[in-house]
């Protein structure tokens, strides 16, 4: 019962934050230099007086501010995210079409970065102070400082242009129709490089965190007790140290989901991956603000959902967590 209450509370908080972001969007349109109707229409649509009139009507731009906010909120809440004049389609359709590829990309990158990061962190902690620890630490430092788009471009140059191992762009091979396993294999080949690029930075973060966390847990009393009881080192590492050390890392990883979505803008731009990150880049180029704000809202919603899921899972995994706090 207490747990259900906790989940309901977190859900309510998530909805409030989402409404806050819609209000923020509204304020951004009002604060942007120029006529708000022209801002919403984007540069291409701003030349069309009829379209502008329509927008002023729809969003009540000639009425008081709070009425405008209400009109904007009710439009968004009924999933009307406006119209992309440039693409001649409703924004919601564009978002629905582009979200799945991004979720595939960021989801793969999330799993890759966490798995590789934790493995490297454990390896470094086990050999703390020796050369393999230093090597992992140095590699993590480099990845931590590398701009994603640059790694992606250099990857394209090395693996696609020079070696010809992997496709340089897109999500599927052009000009061939593949089905079944061939289709999945083709998708995986296209996915590998963008997902790795996106994963590198976070892999470095998780490797460093896991190492630090392992070293901290290693010195605690319950580990010493286990060792005194004669439990084998391998079992101590798996059952006692790793289990406790990994929890904060996984929690932080869930909280950092937003960074992966942010990174997907540059990674999808480099690899022409047809997701919402690429959509955001196109919207920036075309000054298509309706689309851009739609991407902002959808990515925020995904982040809120992932944070919520992390909280719930965390409360299930770690009984020590104070519910309702």
């Amino acid at each position, binding site marked *: 019962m207490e747990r259900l209450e906790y989940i309901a509370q977190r859900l309510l908080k998530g909805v409030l*934050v989402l409404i*806050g*972001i819609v209000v*923020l969007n509204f304020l*951004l*349109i009002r*604060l*942007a*230099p120029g006529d708000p109707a022209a*801002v919403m229409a984007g540069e291409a649509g701003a030349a069309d007086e009829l379209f502008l009139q329509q927008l002023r009507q729809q969003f009540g731009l000639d009425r008081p501010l709070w009425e405008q906010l209400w009109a904007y909120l009710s439009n968004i809440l009924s999933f009307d995210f406006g119209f992309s004049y440039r693409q001649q389609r409703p924004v919601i359709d564009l978002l629905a079409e582009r979200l799945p590829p991004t979720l595939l990309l960021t989801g793969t990158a999330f799993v890759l970065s966490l798995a590789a990061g934790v493995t490297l962190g454990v390896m470094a902690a086990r050999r*703390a*102070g020796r050369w393999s620890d230093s090597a992992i630490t140095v590699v993590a*430092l*480099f990845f*931590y*400082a*590398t*701009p*994603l*788009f*640059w790694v992606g*471009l*250099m990857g*394209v*140059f090395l693996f696609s*242009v020079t070696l010809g191992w992997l496709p340089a762009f897109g999500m599927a091979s052009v000009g061939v129709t593949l089905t079944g396993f061939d289709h999945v294999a083709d998708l995986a080949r296209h996915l590998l490089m963008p997902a790795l690029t996106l994963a590198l930075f976070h892999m470095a973060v998780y490797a460093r965190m896991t190492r*630090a966390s392992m*070293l901290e847990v290693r010195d605690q009393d319950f580990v010493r007790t286990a060792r005194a009881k004669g439990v084998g080192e391998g079992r101590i590492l798996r059952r006692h140290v790793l289990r406790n050390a990994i929890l904060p890392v996984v929690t932080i990883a869930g909280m950092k989901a*937003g*960074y992966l*979505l*942010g*990174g997907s*803008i*540059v990674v999808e*731009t*480099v690899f022409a991956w047809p997701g919402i990150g690429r959509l*955001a*880049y196109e*919207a*920036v*180029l075309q*000054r298509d*603000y309706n689309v*851009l*704000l739609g*991407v*902002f809202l959808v*990515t*925020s919603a995904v*982040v*809120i959902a992932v*944070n919520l899921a992390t909280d719930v899972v965390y409360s299930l995994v770690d009984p020590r967590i104070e519910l309702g706090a």
Partner: protein
Amino acid sequence: MTEFWRRYRRNKGAVAGLVVLALILLVAALGPLAWPGSPWDMAGVPFQPPFSAEHPLGTDTLGRDVATGIVHGARVSLLIGFVATLAALGVGVVVGAVAGYFGGRVDDVAMRLTEFFQTIPSFVFAVVLVAIFTPGIGSIVAAIATVSWPAVARLVRGEFLTLRTREFVQASVVLGRSARHIIFVEILPNAISPIIVSGSLMVATAILVESSLSFLGLGDPNMMSWGYMIGASRSVVRLAWWCSFFPGLAILLTVLALNLVGEGLSDALNPRLSREGR
């Protein structure tokens, strides 16, 4: 100071980072004197490979000299990195200090606001801000500061929560000092170490964000920057890898150096948290 330097010096990576950072600052300060031409001018035939005497790092699609671009771009990256960090520190310190010192309702409101800004996907938000308020140095600095102050606010709040219960603070309260005096003159100097450490790491992050924004075409159109150089030669990476390789290397080295310096500062200023002996 000597004690500080002795502890800093023990971290070899931090010393290397400091040397590299000093070199980059030197290039940013003096480089444009050695490469006086405008980085936007055509300096030679397009697509000249690097390592020639005339164009040590080659030329790009429009025949612009890559080395000149990097030297001029250093100014923009460092400038934006430092100014955005200062702005974020300013906002974060004030919000965190007020929340931590007054507590109660004020703290609640400040922390809800901080949480809200921490939930928003920060890079997407930065892209939206710069795009809507038209790209320029000002909007880029404002956007980076807007997405990075919450971390500072939380840090400073935590410091204030513990410091405000200390005797020297209570003494000031009894003496009838104003809240402003206590916050900025009594407590803040005691919380400065973690602020400096996180500030140095924030400059690195700010430079990464700035380069990503310029890569996407959201840089200041009048300033040559490393991210812009990579973005502009993105489509010709097959023909001319050097146009994007060298600016990226410059970003990597600068960010790496700043991170190393940050770790060194952390070791030197918080000896108890130092990773020595682990």
